């Protein structure tokens, strides 16, 4: 599966919502369950999924689907 699809699945599992509800602009603003604890879970789940390790400084900025996808892709390349 392409990276975007896998990211959507990870987010759906962490936030317990259907993957289809995660738009390209999804952010804590429109996903109610996206609080600070779930944010850590999201980061850990993405790292586990893609076997990557985000830089500590970029973790707070991973609050939008597009940014997450771009960051993950940068690590994958």
């Amino acid at each position, binding site marked *: 599966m392409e990276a975007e699809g896998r990211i959507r699945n*990870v987010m*759906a599992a962490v936030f317990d919502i259907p993957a289809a509800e995660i738009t390209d602009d999804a952010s804590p603003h429109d996903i109610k369950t996206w609080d600070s604890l779930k944010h*850590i879970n999201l980061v850990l789940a993405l790292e586990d999924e893609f076997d990557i390790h985000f830089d500590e400084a970029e973790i707070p900025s991973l609050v939008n689907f597009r940014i997450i996808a771009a960051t993950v892709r940068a690590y994958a390349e």
Partner: protein
Amino acid sequence: MGIELKYSEILRQNTALARSLGEERYKISVLTNVTVSQIKEILEYTLRLEGVPAVVTIGDYDNIVQDSLKYKRSELVVLFWEPYSTAGDLQYRIDLLSDFEVNKIFDKTCAELGLVFKNLQETSLVLMNTFTSLPFSAMDVMPGKLEELTRKLNAHLRDHTPKNARVIDLDKVIARVGIEKSFDLRYWYSSKAPYTINFLKSYSHCVKPFVLSSRGKAKKALIFDCDNTLWKGVLGEEGVSGIQMSRATKEGSFFADVQSIALSLNKQGVLIGLCSKNNPQDVDEVVRLHPDMQLRDENLAVKRVNWADKVSNLREIARELNIGLDSLVFVDDSAFEVNLVRSQLPEVTVLQVPESLHLYPSMLRANGGLFCSLSITAEDAKKTEMYKDQAHREVSKMEFGDLESYLASLGTKLTIHEDDVSIVARMAQLSQKTNQFNLTTIRYTEGDIGAFVSGALTSVFAFSVSDRFGDSGITGLCIVKNLDVQEAVIDTFLMSCRVLGRNVEYAFMNWLIERLERQGARRVYARYVETAKNAQVKEFFDCCSFSLRASTEKERDYVLNVHEYKSKQVEYVEIIDGSRRSYQECYGGRL
């Protein structure tokens, strides 16, 4: 352990499993002085997959002492108590403290530990981790003060672990995962979370055997195929002198180690058996005479050596040992047999001998946790003998046409011990492990039983059964709570399956009712609570002339007006009052 799921997949499947939970909950509280938020779903998932309806609550950060009061009613309390977090951030600061100040931290932590264990003394099960300094000391060339403090705390913990607690060696978990993969210091500095998802997955697997054991789900018997499983070679083709299991040869040494591991499990109370397609005389000859064979007749509780299919043989083995198929672990080298058993008897845990034989002993050893027993007692050591007596009885039973005359010929003696403090561990073990003949299936710990034994309003009766074939050891338990002089409740009545089918339950009930009547009881209440395994005793109290008062799908409530009790005709069971001397004294030499 199989292939590990990704964390997001664990979250997804755990949510799905939550929807299929029944009404029962297995409440787990994690008390911690660091942050381990992600353990909730990972531990829930690991246990729910095994049919345990686990619900995990994580206590407040660094609030272990207060939380130990708040969560003491959990079925399980897990403690994450990290030495580098016992007095603020200690990991590097500790090297700047004086010995006096470090000693104060040590004393304070020991005092808190004592208090927490005391607060949790009635909790069924407490899992405490060894203290570890590894996240901050693994690279030290010279040991620092944190490592020293950790060593002292572990020594203290070893000497002060209460009966209801078990210790998980955290350094071993970390070694398995790898230190780099266990810790993630990014979240240490921001939220005091030291552990990675990888670590938490591995840790949850370490919790599993303890939980399964406390719920009576530990495996009881390890059944081996023979050719290329207990020895190298095919007996029927190569003959007794052709097979190998000697440490003197490379081919034999794998099997020598496997037999040593099996023998050691047997000494811990695990039943060992054979299930092999061979000529029985050939296998008997190897067991009796082969110089390198370590598993001898006295270690083997059951042998099914014939040309019938393994599925029927395993069924018969379970029946002969009087244990469930889900209590069996079966080891075989043949993919055909392994798959056949897996597909026909999914309850049986099947291990296949690995193709790379150097992995075989460690694979078997790693599965030792399946047999995890929370309390190893003197009974375990002589279990094989007792189950073999049972097997002899089964054979005799077939020879006698009339069951009653068979039973009468056994010379059965029932020895009853009342409130005997010397057998508390065995009584707790019976309560935790007995599934089939168990009217209420309430699991009690050693602490619980000890309290009943010393309590004035509760009587705890244990009994052993002996006959001309042998002595069963303590195999029955009955707990009676006195509501007042005239009314009593049978809270627990259970018997090990080893003594089923001999009508001793009726002999005991005759004795109990007569005894209660002498004490002035007019009414005795009793209850049957259905589980997946105790259907055979559903009508036990009906058979004992109790009247059904109320019933739901899962529960049947009874009352007996004592003077209306109709005793069963089981005079061939002789009753002996063992309470004048303790069990240890009666059987001192044999335990």
